[in-house]
């Protein structure tokens, strides 16, 4: 597509099936301690 560049993003529909293992870090754990946000979290699931 000439005028639209689509970035590679995780397929969230697919993650309904393979996700939810819960091994990832709890949201507020690391740096901030005063707010949430999951965008900066890493997925720990090796089978995704």
């Amino acid at each position, binding site marked *: 597509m000439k005028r639209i*560049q689509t970035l590679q993003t*995780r397929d969230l529909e697919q993650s309904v099936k393979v996700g939810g293992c*819960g091994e990832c*870090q*709890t*949201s*507020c754990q*690391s740096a901030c301690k005063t707010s949430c946000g*999951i965008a900066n979290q*890493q997925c720990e699931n090796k089978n995704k």
Partner: protein
Amino acid sequence: MVHQYKLNGYNIVIDSNSSSVHNVDPVAYDMIALYQTTEAEEIIRQMLLKYGDDPTVTDEELRVVLEDIRALEQSGKLYSPDTFENLDLDLTLRNSVVKALCLHVAHTCNLDCQYCFAAQGKYQGERAIMSLEVGKQAIDYLIANSGTRTNLEVDFFGGEPLMNWKMVKDVVQYARSRELDSHKRFRFTLTTNGVLIDDDVIEFCNKEMYNVVLSLDGRPETHDRLRKDIHGCGSYDVIVPKFKKLVEARGDKEYYMRGTFTHFNTDFTNDLFHMADLGFSELSMEPVVCAPGDPYAITEADMPTVMEHYEILAKDMLQRKADGKPITFYHYMVDLQAGPCIYKRISGCGSGTEYLAVTPWGDLYPCHQFVGETEYCLGNLQDGITNPQKQAEFKQCNVYSHEECKTCWARLYCAGGCAANAYHATGSITGVYEQGCRLFRKRMECAIMMQVAEAQED
């Protein structure tokens, strides 16, 4: 829901429900905005009128763009419906294991920071120190209540945890001794103001702590304005050499310099750049959380400056990266490809369910920010959860339980915000802290712009 914005010369389109990101040109940008409400022929007419001077914008070309938009719609990357709401029931059932504890090992502090949400470490209560016995009980509680989860997290928090340092070391040792028999792996984090850092702390932290969070607000005048010792003297000169030494010895292990910005430094980027000049590269800076009337509270009039500085920061970071001297800003780290699954994205921060705070005497609270609010006490280490009704409120708290989040484009990057902020701002954990939301959305716009910029370079 589709969110569109222009930033740093980019035209960005985010499809909320699929979290797809598109970097488009101005013509496609306008067409995407019209597509759902306007007939194709009318879109073409309007575009020819607006872009008539551009020889590449022809009737034929515009029909191709319309086809591209339609293809993205069909592949679920534009105007996609929300198909995840029904997952939240599933989630309520699922949220039954604990995987992280915040240990308040010292409800006391050796600094007297004016904005401290923990009221100089005491959390509206008495000074207290956690005993090793309570610390070990907490580790046992976590192992026993974490189900099949392997990775467990323990934060040493305060007040100032280094005021109970021997106990911290002993708890770490105890937890390590239980890893094998319990099939668990512990990750420890220490949050400290730095005053008591010495060689022993450095050595132990660099060996055992997965992450250390070092509190520094930035420039000397910023830091010393609010982070004073009990005699009213600023703490910058005492802690900065210690932080430098710790970070130098840390190698490539994780750390964060974590600052708070307030009404007095809405140009907080200069504080971040100061940290970078000191040689620190892993940075985090949070807006102060306090009552609206406090002198250092961020006011409505401050908001445009704060927003502008988030943009300045994003642009500066791109430049630093291009120059080969990148810095990391906690809130701008997004991994669009390997980030969290949908369950994580809708399930909120985990407070009161998978994450609990433990007071020095072993009481359990939904998180560190609820400690001291006695009606939020969920139970204690000995008897477990004794207030299941209160816990149920947290189990049901996810992105779909907040009315405002349902129409917010950023919800799958946010997961519904901070329950404690919502409670303090609205009296309910299912409310939202509106100022925090605006800042969050701005940060996401900046973070995604940086991703777009980098994708364009490749």
